[in-house]
């Protein structure tokens, strides 16, 4: 029994640590290098965007570029699109997934397969097809800014679907539903008071992902001639690179913030295709 109480010798720890250091130096170096390279464009766009040669820190490039434009409108457009696409996705997918998990789990393989199709089709191909199809099928449809919403929903579908599906799988919906019903709850009560609160994490995760993607989407909006924030950025960038750099910096930061919130809420890992390019 006496052996348990033996005090550890502090000096021994040092050796143990240096032993494994060989491989770890290489790993730390790789990660450090990656960090520097990742950050360089970010730092550069801040430095480039918020300075003027010989003047130091300055908001002038950005102010000049924004003066006389209706950036507010474009920002609002993007914000509206982000909110509407997110709501649209949730309204479409949450009931669908809940229904399928409860009543027809054998169909989930099929819908999962469906949800991956947008993965395969590049945004630019989707725009081309949409342009062709809706110009003939419903000529007025593409005029409205809001016509972008369904396409954004399509583009974000793989990520949003996965996030929600993983969330539902993690709560064992059937048991939860049965337990709630056995206590006398009506279906809508179960939905509002039991299921949705338990899905909060994955709902939030799906929303953040969706917003982050809409924030950066360019191809669809530009080619369907709608004016969103990324489209505005490209216009600015044509002749005011400093202002564009400043806007890029802000965009990247906001994206980071959204995704950082996402990982904080420990939503399921996203293995995704890249964002809209």
């Amino acid at each position, binding site marked *: *029994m006496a*052996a*348990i109480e*033996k005090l*550890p*010798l*502090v000096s*021994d*720890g040092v*050796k*143990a*640590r240096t*032993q494994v250091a060989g491989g770890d130096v290489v790993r730390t170096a790789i990660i450090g290098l990656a960090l520097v390279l990742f950050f360089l464009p970010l730092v550069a766009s801040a430095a480039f965007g918020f300075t003027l040669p010989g003047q130091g820190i300055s908001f002038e490039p950005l102010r000049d570029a924004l003066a006389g434009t209706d950036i507010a409108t474009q920002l609002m457009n993007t914000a509206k699109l982000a909110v509407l696409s997110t709501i649209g996705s949730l309204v479409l997918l949450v009931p669908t997934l809940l229904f399928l998990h409860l009543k027809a789990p054998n169909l989930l393989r099929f819908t999962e397969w469906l949800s991956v199709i947008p993965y395969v089709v590049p945004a630019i191909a989707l725009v081309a097809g949409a342009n062709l199809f809706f110009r003939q099928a419903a000529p007025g449809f593409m005029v409205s800014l809001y016509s972008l919403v369904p396409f954004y929903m399509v583009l974000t579908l793989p990520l949003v679907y996965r996030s929600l599906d993983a969330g539902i799988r993690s709560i064992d919906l059937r048991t939860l539903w049965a337990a709630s019903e056995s206590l006398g709850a009506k279906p809508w009560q179960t939905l509002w008071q039991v299921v949705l609160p338990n899905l909060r994490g994955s709902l939030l995760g799906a929303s953040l992902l969706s917003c982050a993607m809409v924030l950066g989407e360019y191809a669809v909006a530009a080619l369907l001639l709608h004016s969103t924030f990324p489209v505005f950025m490209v216009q600015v960038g044509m002749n005011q690179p400093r202002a564009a750099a400043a806007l890029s910096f802000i965009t990247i930061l906001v994206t980071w913030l959204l995704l950082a919130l996402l990982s904080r809420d420990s939503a399921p890992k996203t293995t995704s295709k890249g964002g809209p390019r």
Partner: protein
Amino acid sequence: MNRDSAEVALHGITKSYGGKRVLDNLDLTLAPGELLALLGPSGCGKTTTLRVLAGLETPDTGTVSIGGVDMTSAPVRGRGIGLVFQSYSLFPHMSAAENVAYGLRIAGSSKSVRTRRATELLEMVGLSEHAAKFPGQLSGGQQQRVALARALAIEPRVLLLDEPLSALDAQVRVHLREEIKRIQVQAGTTTLLVTHDQEEALTIADRVGVMLGGQIEQLGTPEQIYSAPHTAFISEFVGAVNRIPATATTGGVSVLGKLLKISNPDSAPAAASGLEALIRPEDLRLTRQGDGLGIVESMMLRGPLTSVMVALQGRCLRVDLPSHEAAEFSPAMRVALSPRRDAALIDSSSTTPRDSLPAAPAHLLSHLGPIA
């Protein structure tokens, strides 16, 4: 099968992780061809000992020698060891036969030799018909057999098994441990088996080393460990034991009115009061006696043995009797207790005497009910 089974010796091994001393000046010697089990509670350093021996960890101080050669800083692959882990150690992209043959492939054996040897080994572990299957298609027990065959394929000088049965169902575990013993005897390989299951260690090992706090507390045959434990910890770890109040007398202690010698004079507490004798359930004699101090509380059938639970001076003691002898007792009966042996292990009294008894298996109770 003929291979040079080696003597294995660890001397003065110390190993710390981040200031925490896990192995503390540990000495251990395995005789050629013996199966030695390292037994101890989780976290006591068993795996670390095995890994130091395998070369997967480098000790801070001390030496490792295999077959008389100093191997302290030899790489894992130069040591001639076979390793079996708790689970997940088969290469998932190779069939059972390919797994078994992998070590020979590394060694550069010809394909025909590899195939023959793999077939032979899979036959030995009883998996001939599963040779072409992938690990994912095998049960846990089958996977461990393949792992054993793979480790033996290279004719190792030492076989190291780290809790090879812990992840398996109880039935498979019992069956496979006997098989491991058979194969080990047949192969004659010096073997170190790490386990936290005392039954496993006692049933198949030639010698058992009980570990605690990075040291070997006692090394001996299973019989010695079970019947003559050096310390209270070992006594309690390797089987059920009753803690019974004892009072010091000249030349020994008095337990239940009988004078006993102290079997652990070196580690026994010096105090005269607050002592307890550690006595195994089968080492207590039970007699019907109208004015006895004990009252039978309940009875539990354990196959050939029956445990009679006796309330005595506010404690619950367990007495194991052959089941046919137990038939004469029934709950609420007054009984007298006395030690069968002449010596006992003495420890200072623990605060929770009941804890030393393993809890009765609830499922057994509910199936059988108390025997009356």
